[in-house]
């Protein structure tokens, strides 16, 4: 199936839904790894919006990306609770372990605030991380 066909299939899946834009963008992001210019145009047309409207939404939310990044991603929580449990001290080594191969990003809170520092890879969560555990997690990502 071509990319265009798959895209219109996703859009069709949400027909009749109230406020369909975010669910569509989530599916497109999941399927293609990004919401690029062509996807924005197609979605805008289908929902009778301007491309600027769609672009405004895509660029507003942290979960949507305009460019494809094929690197594996490790999200580390650096909010207050994880800070109080020492996540900042782990970050220099984590950045070194990630290098250019792994995309190391910051997330504000995974809701595991009593057992931090925490990280997320895909839909898997990891808690009680120390230096070696976080480094291992990044190396295996």
């Amino acid at each position, binding site marked *: 199936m071509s990319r265009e066909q798959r895209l219109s299939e996703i859009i069709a899946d949400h027909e009749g839904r109230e406020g369909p834009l975010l669910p569509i963008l989530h599916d497109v992001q999941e399927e293609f790894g990004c919401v690029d210019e062509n996807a924005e145009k197609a979605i805008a047309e289908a929902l009778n919006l301007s491309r600027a409207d769609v672009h405004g939404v895509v660029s507003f939310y942290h979960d949507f990306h305009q460019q494809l990044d094929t690197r594996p991603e490790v999200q580390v929580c650096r909010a*207050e609770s994880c800070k109080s449990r020492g996540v900042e001290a782990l970050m220099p080594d984590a950045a070194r372990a990630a290098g250019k191969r792994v995309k190391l990003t910051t997330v*504000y809170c995974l809701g595991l605030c009593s057992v*931090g520092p925490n990280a997320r890879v895909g839909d898997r969560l990891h808690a009680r991380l120390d230096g070696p555990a976080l480094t291992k997690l990044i190396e295996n990502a």
Partner: protein
Amino acid sequence: MTIVRISDDALARACGADALAAAFEKAGATVERTSSWGMHWLEPLVEIEGQGFGPATVDDVDAILDGSSGKAIGEIEKHPFIARQQRLTFARAGKSRPLSLEDYQKHGGWAGLKRARQIGPERIIEEVLESGLRGRGGAGFPAAIKWKTVAAAVADQKYIVCNADEGDSGTFADRMMMEGDPFALIEGTAIAGEAVGATKGFIYVRSEYPDAIDKLRKAARLCAHIVAPFVCEIRMGAGAYVCGEETSLLNSLEGKRGEVRAKPPLPALKGLFGRPTVVNNVLTLCAVHHILAEGGAQTYQSLGIDRSKGTMPIQLAGNIKYGGLYETAFGITLNELVHEIGGGTASGRPVKAVQVGGPLGAYIHPEQFDVPFDYEAYARIDALIGHAGITVFDDTADMGTMARFAMEFCAAESCGKCTPCRIGSTRGVELIDRIREGGRALEALEKVPQMHNMPRRGRTQDEEIELLEDLCETMKFGSLCALGGFTPYPVMSALKHWPEDFRK
């Protein structure tokens, strides 16, 4: 065969519960995955015939099964951490399988909805009013008043929106509720629908909670026939903290940028798609089915102090020895919570500060630890209860850095609609940096003779602090929503109680 109960809460899973469950199955036991008791330092917690073992690893499996494990904690329900609590919202925590309709029914599920349908909208609202239930999202607005407004509004369609965008660091009660007792939330949403005449409900869950989204979607399908004609749809957020603000959440649901709306019009009159909408927090809606069950309103009303009625699920987080979920009536002090129940810091060092209410909550000094936990008492010391998350810091914490982070966080998460929040937060970061550097020197351009209107000197540290106070004042009163409006709380409280951390 031995029945082993292990939680499938995201926190237990992140601590290795899945591998542990697999190991028990391999050893020949039957494993039941339940909700979490909320004793997080013991996760993964293993329960066999009421007896607990934790924190367990795969290496402990044989010893636990033959009864020789050193990780035994005795009977879970008699554990002091559990026995001291008054659990209402979390009554089923640890005891039921989250997606088992049978378990939910056995523990009193659907009784509230059934009775609500018998007594009708007016009496439902009366009973919620009588219970004294206040919104658990942070502002503490009486739930029944909001419902009454929506019920009285005339429209072709009304909505119930559950705000499950729990983005505050140090809070996880919503997550535990959604993962451990998803039917309770759906029942509460359906009761709210019954009260105001809405047939459609949305639960907006943040994307950082994949487990909660998955469980709620499954639960909504399983109980669709029970709540019908009410329909409950689960929506996923997209990583914007500000969408926890109700009007920005509504914009997000409509498929727009999560920008805050000016109020009025109130969402109760013009909310989702311009229709009358109830927006309630997860914990508010989860308290509803207890209140609507026979005699529930009086029980609820009899708990708590002053105008803060009922119980509050308090979340003990951060650098704390015994972290987890502690539900109790209002009125408890931080001394009890942090030292007696929480056992002090996990690092064993002295407590320096406690942040109550997430990233927008004030830092509280140990000298204020005797203030009773209630909305009004906290307001009097310039603090807020918010979502009742408590993050503990030991004496290695640098409060200047934490104040700077509060501004940095606001800058990263601001929706950009109003100036005090969008610009003020960035200026706040710069100001705190300059304060910590000792003041502001003149820049090269400011020294050239042509700039004769410029002051002839830079600003001292004291002048910069005055400027920060001024900025905080502007943000507090000039911002559209709580993000910009409450960011001054952590900043000003840190500055007030730990000025030495700013003057280095």
